[in-house]
């Protein structure tokens, strides 16, 4: 075993690189630990998420990227055995310690999943569901506007405007994923979490989503898990490398990809990038 690997197995391991963002901080994670029963899934994570930037989470399978992203909108709550400790704050309000309701949190922290998962309802209903349950609109006209502008920003409006009442599941995979993005931005969140949003899509659909992410970052903070190094390099401004539950290294994408400091990061980057 290499010395660096031994080093990170110790609990007092400190993340290399700058966990702070240069942009305005939206979400900040301090000393976060996650347990699934006895299994220590995330170890002492410290990280900041800034406005108008894309933060890419990279690392081998099972390293805790998805667990981490699901802490940010408390989706881990649905797993009975999952215990989260530490301070995770959304604009200085702790999201775990009863200061913020989970429903409000999820309205402010949207999520797009690995496999496109539109509701088996109409395209319109898919996008309108969020605004409706939160009571964001008072008239049908307002709701129509939100649906339309969300679809527009997700780059889907032209393709679906003639069949708003067709079911969301009748769309192609790439369109479904853009519908899910439209659904997420319809509730006007601060942050959008994306858990490998392109892994189930073909290259053309992937390209469209990447363009979309690039546009969305003008208004939102985006945290994205990805297995594609090239994708991380293309769309993200900052990157964080996870390994066996540790956040090993974090920095600007340029730094992580061109001049990583930690041996593990270097191995991963070079192995994948070839």
């Amino acid at each position, binding site marked *: 075993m290499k010395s660096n690997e031994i080093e990170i197995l110790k609990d007092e391991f400190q993340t290399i690189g700058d966990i702070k963002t240069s942009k305005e901080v939206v979400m900040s994670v301090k000393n976060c630990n996650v347990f699934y029963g006895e299994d220590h899934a995330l170890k002492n994570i410290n990280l900041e998420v800034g406005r108008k930037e894309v933060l890419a989470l990279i690392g081998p399978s099972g390293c805790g990227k998805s667990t981490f992203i699901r802490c940010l909108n408390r989706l881990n709550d*649905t797993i*009975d055995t999952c215990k989260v400790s530490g301070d995770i704050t959304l604009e200085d309000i702790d999201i775990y310690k009863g200061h913020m309701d989970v429903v409000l949190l999820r309205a402010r922290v949207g999520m797009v999943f690995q*496999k496109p998962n539109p509701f088996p309802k109409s395209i319109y209903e898919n996008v309108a569901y969020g605004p409706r349950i939160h009571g964001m609109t008072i008239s049908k006209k307002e709701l129509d506007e939100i649906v339309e502008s969300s679809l527009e920003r997700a780059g889907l409006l032209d393709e679906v405007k003639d069949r708003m009442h067709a079911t969301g*599941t009748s769309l192609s995979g790439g369109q479904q994923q853009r519908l899910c993005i439209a659904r997420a931005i319809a509730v006007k969140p601060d942050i959008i979490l994306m858990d490998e949003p392109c892994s189930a899509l073909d290259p053309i659909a992937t390209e469209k989503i990447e363009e979309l992410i690039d546009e969305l970052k003008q208004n939102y903070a985006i945290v994205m898990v990805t297995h594609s190094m090239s994708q991380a390099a293309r769309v993200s401004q900052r990157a964080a490398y996870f390994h066996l539950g540790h956040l090993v290294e974090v920095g600007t994408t340029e730094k992580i990809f061109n001049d990583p400091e930690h041996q593990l990061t270097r191995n991963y980057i070079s192995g994948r990038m070839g």
Partner: protein
Amino acid sequence: MSDASITEIVNKNLKKRYKKEASFQRYGQISILLAASFLVIFFTDIISKGYTAFNQSEIRLSIYMDQEFIDPEKTGDIEEIRYGNFDGLVFQSLYDLFPEVTSRAEKRKLRNILSSSAGIEIQNLVVNDPSLINKTLDLWLPLDDEIDMLLKGNIDVLLPEESRRVSDSQIKFIQILQSKGLIEGKFNDTLFTAGDSREAEQAGILGALVGSALMLSITFIVAFPLAVAAAIYLEEFARKNRFTDFIEVNINNLAAVPSIIYGLLGLAVFINFFGMPRSAPLVGGLVLALMTFPVIIIASRAALQSVPPSIRDAAYGVGASKIQTVFDHVLPLALPGMLTGSIIGMARALGESAPLIMIGMVAFVVDVPSSPLDSSAALPVQVYLWADSPERAFVEKTSAAILVLLAFLLSMNSLAIWLRNKYEIKW
């Protein structure tokens, strides 16, 4: 190992592997064939025994509605007319066909070829329309069940007279009537419009059918919402701990408890403790609801589990609360499965006779129930009662009742399939 040797090894085993597959397929086909042939035997037996029950032998009599018999005091009052001697009227027109029969014994034998319901049919006609008095009517009236059996070939005329229920002279009467074309088999609408009777030709299935329908409605109304609510709570809201595990084990055990025990429970709780009426579809429905309850919970939980977690994630992801997630997304997807499961559970309950016997639904009830509180029979119990009756004519009635029960079951199962296809959301 070189490529050539792999080819050799695979080739050597290939035959054996395909043989295994072929023989497994053969076993499967044999089992299906066996199952299918049992089914065919079962249906041929029931249908061949039962189809004659849909037919009833009737006699055409020309009856003069003599006021002397109906209303000798010429009051014209319906209440007086109700007590008229209608049997006498029918017998008179029958005697008129056989003027040579004069002895009392022979006359009695002649009378007995008619069903005792013949007079009642005429009574109903006249009470509903008193203007028929003093007119002559041509009517088809039912024959006695023993005569019906004779005409359907179920009585061996070669047996000595004292060992059959139809006498020589009755056979002679029937032959004469047949040669005159006065006897015909008609569709037996009594079977579908009457309740039970000791006389086979007057016995119908309607009472049992209505009783079963009332019972199942109560079962559905009570068991479905309760069981679905329990399933949703256990599956979506309850934390997984020792207590919920204990509940789950007990639900599975309850689903396997013999049905007669539910009958005893119903007897003790609903009838003895709450004082509900005996033999009533209300109690039957509640007992069957208890019995179906765990089955529906299990089916509903399976339906909830089969909803993909990605849909829950999607709903939570846009900020839906737990109850919104369940009612807006999970439940609509699980509902077809829940309905199918419950209808199949209820179909099982429909065929259940043991618990109904415990709560007194085995009683002989003639009237068709008009509310769930009336005494009533139920289809499976009716089958049991008729199968137990000594008269030959009840054999075909039993099979007919089984056919009606099967038709009921079949329509329920078709409903389940229809509902599933209608509400199933595909993606």
